């Protein structure tokens, strides 16, 4: 076959392909869809955590479509990759809202990525569902926080340790960025209000991706051998956790001596570690894969079938997306429209079942009610729930422990304000 011939033939194929895809697009346009944005990093450092959430969203949307979609229309996921690059988050959010015309976005993991997209959501008036536990001190009209606020994770965990493990000395160890710093500030204030002395609190920060933990673990060991029961409250982020736990195991720190309670370590993170030496260390979340409810069983089964991988685990932020997505669907149906303003008004007060056997509700401060669970690491990488709150805990946007925020309340239903000062009676602190 001559080159000319080949070129001609390939041109024809190309033309045919284009024609087919054009008609497909035409067909898709004919049957109108509702577009939903998924804004999670699929490459870069955060891909390790966020890729799972993208898959979870695709599963939820597929499932909703099987049920007939929303308002009689099929949902269509628009997935973009902000590549763990914070400014790119804002760019991609803008692209989703202005170019792709999505009506709601599910996304972000780190607080800095959320802060980066905030102005975009405000300016273009869209809706963001944020599924990760965070440091609080924020309530925005366009954002719904389906992860835990500090009072739904950090404070109950510390109370559990003080009560059940009789801990009197505290190591607050974290990665050096906004979430650990704010959480530790809240915890320090909380512990001091409970009569813990300054010399019984050790605070230590490490850079992102810290991998040489020898000195810090040795310090923790020394701090813990002062005769008082000691525990580590860890806000260490992502990748740094594996070397941290490995070093703990190597230096022989057992959970029965110095338990570590972590706020950022879930089933997904443990998948990369041999957990036998870590048995008994704790994590505080609002969901664990090991929770034994029919809803959760069904969810895990669906997840494994969807990912076609029997070893895939589920985790807390995934459950947050489940709750957030179901709340959005319910609010859209209630409002009869996907218009962000109508959804924002309709969603407050919406109740959907969570996967742990309770009914979560969207509060006027755009946070939700969740149960708080404390789990101990088991040797198979799962958690054994050793304690849970009586009922569901309502999320507080503004921490009562911090000077600057204890007088603030958020209420988007009656006050229409995210930071109303109850002392000065003014919106805007």
């Amino acid at each position, binding site marked *: 076959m001559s080159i000319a011939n080949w070129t001609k033939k390939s041109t024809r194929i190309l033309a045919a392909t284009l024609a087919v895809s054009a008609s497909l697009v035409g067909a898709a346009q004919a049957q109108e869809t509702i577009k939903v944005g998924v804004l999670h990093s699929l490459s870069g450092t955060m891909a390790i955590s966020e890729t799972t959430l993208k898959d979870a969203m695709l599963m939820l949307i597929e499932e909703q479509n099987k049920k007939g979609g929303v308002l009689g229309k099929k949902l269509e996921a628009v997935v973009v990759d902000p590549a763990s690059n914070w400014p790119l988050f804002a760019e991609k959010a803008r692209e989703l809202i202005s170019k792709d015309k999505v009506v709601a976005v599910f996304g972000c993991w780190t607080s800095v990525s959320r802060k980066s997209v905030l102005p975009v959501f405000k300016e273009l008036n869209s809706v963001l569902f944020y599924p990760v536990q965070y440091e609080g001190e924020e309530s925005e009209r366009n954002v719904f926080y389906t992860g835990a606020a500090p009072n739904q994770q950090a404070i109950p965990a510390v109370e559990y340790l003080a009560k059940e493990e009789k801990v009197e000395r505290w190591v607050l160890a974290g990665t050096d960025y906004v979430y650990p710093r704010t959480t530790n500030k809240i915890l320090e204030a909380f512990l001091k209000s409970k009569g813990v002395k300054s010399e019984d609190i050790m605070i230590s920060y490490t850079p992102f991706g810290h991998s040489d933990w020898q000195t810090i673990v*040795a310090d923790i060991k020394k701090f813990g051998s002062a005769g008082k029961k000691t525990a580590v409250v860890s806000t260490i982020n992502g*990748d740094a956790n*594996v*070397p941290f736990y490995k070093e703990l195991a190597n*230096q022989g720190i057992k*959970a029965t001596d110095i338990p570590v309670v972590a706020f950022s370590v879930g089933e997904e993170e443990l998948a990369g570690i*041999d957990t036998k030496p870590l048995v008994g260390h704790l994590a505080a979340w609002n969901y664990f894969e090991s929770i034994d409810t029919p809803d959760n069983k069904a969810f895990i089964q669906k997840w494994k079938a969807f990912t076609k991988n029997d070893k895939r685990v589920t985790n807390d932020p995934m459950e947050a997306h489940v709750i957030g997505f179901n709340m959005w669907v319910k609010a859209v149906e209630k409002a009869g429209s996907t218009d962000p303003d109508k959804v924002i008004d309709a969603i407050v007060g919406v109740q959907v079942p969570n996967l742990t056997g309770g009914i979560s509700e969207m509060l006027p401060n755009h946070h939700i009610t969740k149960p708080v669970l404390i789990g*101990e690491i088991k040797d198979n990488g799962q958690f*054994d729930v050793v304690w849970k709150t009586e009922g569901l805990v309502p999320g507080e946007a503004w921490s009562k422990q911090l000077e600057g925020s204890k007088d603030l309340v958020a209420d988007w239903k009656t006050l229409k304000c995210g930071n109303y000062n109850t002392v000065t009676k003014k919106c805007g602190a």
Partner: protein
Amino acid sequence: MAALILNFWAHRMISFRNALRALLGPLVVVGALSSAHAGPYDDALIKLTTDNYADTDAGVAALVESGNPRAEAIIEALRAGTLLYGDGKLAIRGPAGVAVDATTATPLVASDAGSLKPVRVNNRVRRAVEAALGSMTLLSPDQRRRLDAAAAVLRSRDAAALPSLDKALAQEKVERVKIAMLEARAAIILNQPDSSPGDRLAAVATLGNLGNQNALALLANLPAGASPELTAAARQASETIAANLALWNAAQNVWYGISLGSVLLLAAIGLAITFGTMGVINMAHGEMVMIGAYTTFMVQEVIRNHAPGLFGASLFIALPLAFLIAGAIGIAIERLVIRFLYGRPLETLLATWGLSLILQQGVRTMFGPSNREVGTPEWMSGALQLGGLSLTYNRIAIVIFAFAVFATLLLVLRYTSLGLYMRAVTQNRRMAGSVGIRTSRIDALAFGLGSGVAGIAGVALSQIDNVSPNLGQSYIIDSFMVVVFGGVGNLWGTLVGAMTLGVANKLLEPFAGAVLGKILLLVAIILFIQRRPRGLFALKGRAAEA
């Protein structure tokens, strides 16, 4: 709500039964625990079946008190997670999936074994179990068990353990275990309100002689109502210990520095060849390390599935494979990309950076974004106590390994023909070509060698870091820092550079903290490079001009 709970309970039962059947096959059980022959022992056993941590805790204590000969086996099973309960029965699951009656140790074929579930433990129960086993296993023939037992007694400070502790001490021959037992004994005596002042003083003296962190903590926490004499003796002992410990601490920090230095050395040594001697700014160097780590993961996967007995040797099997795989990829990169870019450092930098992203995303697509579990062989876990120093085995192994790699590389460069050609090409490419060395082949081989060495570094680093697609990124900056600081083109410079940075980092960390320590170090390096742009060991003469 009640219906929901019932439903959920039924669900749990069914799934559990299936799981157990699948796991255990024929299962054997236990006589029912009834109050017919109630005694303290049976009461204790009933407490273990209530699925309540406080009850389990009390049950363990009651079991110990009962003095029943079966108590140890039952508590041991609780520790190992093989104690099962259900319908008021207790059973112990054996290694072959056969359960025995916890009370009589006789195997029983059970029809209703499906309803048995493991007795759950939390940290509180675990502590009780450790303390209970501690006093029971002080005389165990296994040295490690005795050591654990002594540590457990030290923690519980249970006066009831004193007689068995004395008995164990009298016949203990292993020094390490003896020290642990002495420590535990002193702790009990200090803590006992009714021990005589003489005994207490003796205990303080014992602790003073032991001179470790535990002793210091015990001395600092004398119980209320201690006599002035005792307080004074304790203070004196603490001061001596504290001074002693400060010295050990400094030594410990130097060790941490050496071990961090050896990690830096491993990461940088391959770069010392590709960047140092060939002048290629290889941003994909970190990804070679990552590929080595993933090779380790794959080797372990195969071993886990096909030959679990070989697990201890998995790292040794992974080493040559990692070298070959990373080396081959290195050669491919050199042949396909870098050889067209020699003498154009900026383009090389961009091209290799692009390659590093491609490799990362490739691995992410193949293996998924999450961390992969690389196990630590038994011989690399735990720590060696050397006086006041605590050296973890995995770090010792990495230090030795780093030096071995360094020495091998030095020998290769010095005594093999490849090494000779490489040095010749580095020193004067045109002249080397004129005397008949195929410079382009040497370039490819040198790049392959550098990449291969990065690959075996990955095997070692898989033991201390995440095996994820991002593994390489965290080492690339440090590696360049070491090579530039040490002096480009000199392996010795890389060694000294890595050790200096490692030790300096670890000596700064206790004072400045991890974040500030790293910043200070970077500032120091910038200042140093300003003064000596060619690093610690600069090449001199004509080689430097090339």
